[in-house]
């Protein structure tokens, strides 16, 4: 079995199984926790209105903008580039469609009733390059900012590493740089598998929890009468 066959075979099956296992473990573990009982008198009974925080926290507050602008902008640039490359690059879509057919019997694209668009490889390459630049920028910022450096741990740096590696290896595979294409493709797939395995157990899990956490926080704030 060559490296590519290993990456597309057993390594892929195991990493997806670990990913699903870990994500479900974390989500069930978190959602079945009992929240602390708030014994104080509610200042606002319509605490559901706090769900606004899910949206409000998606851009910086004006008074903090000067300090957080860099992180916010770089974060958006990275996330948009990453997600577009992930969901609008044809080889990725074919992979998702294959899994979709295996799990639910139909190609996920047909569920929406309209065609799922994909972008030319050159566009994806460009967006990936922007994402890599944004990730490098936030790493430098993390290293030179004393507060961020102080609160950073292994999880932060390793999560950064397993995030940037698939993008860089994907770009190398696309450009056929440094090694035969099969090797580059195998390394790219293996790097994605590393990401999948680490995902549930590190801070990358925020992808599944961020909006629920914002909602819960917003509802708690609303109950306390805090300004969102």
């Amino acid at each position, binding site marked *: 079995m060559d490296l590519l066959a290993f990456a597309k075979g057993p390594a892929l099956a195991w990493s*997806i*199984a670990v990913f*699903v*296992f870990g994500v479900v473990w*974390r989500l069930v*573990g978190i959602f079945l926790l009992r929240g602390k009982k708030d014994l104080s008198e509610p200042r606002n009974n319509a605490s559901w209105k706090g769900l606004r925080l899910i949206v409000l926290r998606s851009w910086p507050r004006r008074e903090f903008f000067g300090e957080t602008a860099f992180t916010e902008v770089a974060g958006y640039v990275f996330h948009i580039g990453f997600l577009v490359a992930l969901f609008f690059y044809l080889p990725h879509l*074919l*992979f998702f469609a294959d899994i979709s057919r295996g799990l639910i019997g139909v190609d996920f694209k047909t569920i929406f009733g309209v065609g799922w668009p994909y972008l030319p490889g050159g566009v994806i390459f460009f967006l990936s390059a922007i994402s890599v630049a944004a990730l490098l920028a936030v790493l430098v910022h993390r290293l030179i900012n004393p507060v961020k450096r102080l609160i950073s741990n292994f999880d932060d740096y390793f999560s950064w590493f397993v995030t940037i590696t698939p993008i860089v290896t994907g770009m190398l595979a696309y450009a056929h740089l440094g090694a035969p294409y099969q090797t580059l493709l195998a390394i790219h797939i293996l790097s994605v598998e590393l990401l999948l395995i680490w995902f549930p157990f590190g801070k990358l899990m925020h992808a599944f929890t961020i909006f629920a956490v914002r909602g819960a926080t917003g509802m708690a704030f609303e109950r306390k009468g805090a300004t969102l």
Partner: protein
Amino acid sequence: MTPHPTLGDLLTQRGISRRAFLKFCAAVTSLMALPPDMAPAIAQALAKATRPSVIWLSFQECTGCTESLTRSVSPTLEALILDMISLDYHHTLQAASGTAAEEAREHAMKEASGKYLLLVDGSIPTKDGGVYGTWAGESFHDILSDAVKGAAAVVAIGTCAAFGGIPKANPNPTGAVAVSDLVKGKPVINVPGCPPIAVVMTGVLAHYLAFGTIPELDPLGRPKAFYGETIHDRCYRRPFYDQGKFAKTFDDEGARNGWCLYELGCKGPTTYNSCATIKWNAGTSFPIQSGHGCLGCSEPDFWDKGSFYQALPTGDWGSAKTIGIAAAAGAAIGAAAAYSARKRQERSMKGG
């Protein structure tokens, strides 16, 4: 005529003009990605070369490799060059048969010991003492071992000889192996393909005749000159891949417009060969140009790498059952963790 005529002498006798010969040398130089100024050197070396003895052994194969070689456009200069080698043993092409044929092989091996080129097509069965392939009661394995001893170099022609090919495909009932799995201590050149392109075979021979050495090889033992780039990289449909234009079926508008066949399972991106540049039938076409995706036949284990019509990005990601078990196990452990946390919380509240 001298007892050991050179290729130059023989080509002159066959009426091949100097111009045609130089044209062939220039083509070989170009194909092997050598500097243009090497063409005269190749011409000079080839003209002076004497006919090397070549023994061609056919094992677990379908004769497709020989068909490719002989059914290249006839007559070609490449075919004549092949005539110019002393092909002392070849099942399909030789007139002799039976004991006489085997005697001819043994005679050639003795006469040209240490100098002959050994060309092998087909894999070699090794299971159960190699009984699944024999000539005159002798196993392929033994015949190969015997023939290799006096060979100057070994050329594995076709994917079966180079990597085991179809006989080695799962479940490999005969224990088929590649030539390089058995031959140690001698240079082995792999010329895979199912079949290989005729000019690739003759190009490798021309290189050996001209320089007396084997060409530069890639990690899989293939000449880099012919297997240095993927079919995808040199495919005339590549611009459509870059533009995101793909045929979805073999008879849709995309297919009629000649768009990329990636979604239809083309293995061009992972296949190293010269099909897209040299092409077949005197440069007429190659599979992708004819509307079908590349099968990846010059790569190891191409038969076992999933369907020819399954797009490359698809992989063996498991099954719905495996994913379900993983999710159920995750849910069970998550619930146990939450239960444990609740208990701790209760104890803490009681204690507080």
